[in-house]
């Protein structure tokens, strides 16, 4: 028995739940839950996260499948965007009287 199978005996794997509140909106992260497989994760997600019509569609993804950026590297990772204010429209001053821009 592999290590992964052994741990499955003790605790069901963790899944992340994403719910679309209504058509036209994106799926948003709602929380997580334990389930033996994807099918059970979907059923549990419905019972745990959509008891009051909070959604019309659910995605589940096993938590270990998610690769996340490292918060310790946050500055190095995101700072390069900070000094590029010319990417925002407010950087450009318009002459008096210009409309529809």
């Amino acid at each position: 028995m592999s290590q992964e199978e052994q741990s499955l005996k003790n605790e069901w794997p963790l899944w992340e739940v994403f719910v679309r509140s209504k058509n036209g909106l994106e799926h948003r992260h709602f929380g997580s839950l334990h389930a033996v497989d994807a099918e059970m994760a979907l059923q549990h997600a419905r019972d745990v996260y959509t008891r009051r019509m909070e959604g019309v569609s659910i995605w589940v993804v096993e938590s270990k499948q998610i690769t996340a950026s490292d918060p310790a590297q946050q500055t190095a990772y995101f700072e390069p965007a900070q000094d590029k204010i010319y990417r925002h429209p407010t950087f450009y001053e318009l002459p008096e009287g210009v409309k529809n821009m």
Partner: protein
Amino acid sequence: MSEQEQMRERSLEEEFTKRIAQDEKIEPKDWMPQRYRQMNIRQISQHAHSEIVGMLPEGNWITRAPSLLRKVTLLAKVQDEAGHGLYLYSAAETLGISRDEMYEQMLCGKAKYSSIFNYPTLTWADIGAIGWLVDGAAIVNQVSLTHTSYGPYARAMVRICKEESFHQRQGYQIMYKMANGTPEQKAMAQDALNRWWWPSLMMFGPRDAESTHTDQSMAWKIKIKSNDTLRQMFVDQAVPQADILGLRIPDPHLRYNPETAHYEFGAIDWEEFWQVVKGHGICNKQRLADKNKAWKEGEWVRKAAVAYAEKQAKKRVRKAG
């Protein structure tokens, strides 16, 4: 720890304290002091256990609810409590403790849950009193916790608060109906209020002066308001609600102070509180025995679910092959 490591630890902690002071939220993979992690695990898991054990006193009345509407309402409420427990366990798991470890701590009696659930539900009016007072007290606490510094805990609190207000209203409605019913029904409602009032005040925990974790917990914004502050908020809300019911709060010292604009109330029986916390309440043993029984008797279900999932996975492999 080497001197260099200690210096690094100190600078990380300074950075952390600064972030808390600026009301920044802490997220699971961020650096945090070990004690911050432990205090959050302790508080969130206790909170989760309270939701789970809290299903028992109410579950007691599902089969005996006086009408179909009351029955489906109570079922929905108890299902919500299960959901709230699950949100909170998930939040605690992001701090690195496993679900099984937390659950085991609850089952063996090592972890605490709210002392209120160690009181019995003797009549239908108790279901009303629990919704009105116990959920009411929980809401006061939880609304303040939506501002807690640990992100996953704060998000769970927002979700829970949204759902909890139905719990309080349905309880208050039960009380209102009974308080305006036959003299016997009104007496039942009064009796339930008499028994649940003081334990509800105890839900906020020891007085500030005796609360061991409060200082650090508030400095790190794990707790936002102190036990005594929250207790006072609850009393100020509940007294006018009792007046509308036409019921009397069982406290001869209760009086409104127009200068402070607060209700002053009598002394809480802290001896009773500590007895219940230490496991000597009316229902402590029964609650833990019931949870252990459910866990043990559910073992074959958990095993069967894993066996079924493995079988399905093998089938998929065969098909693909």
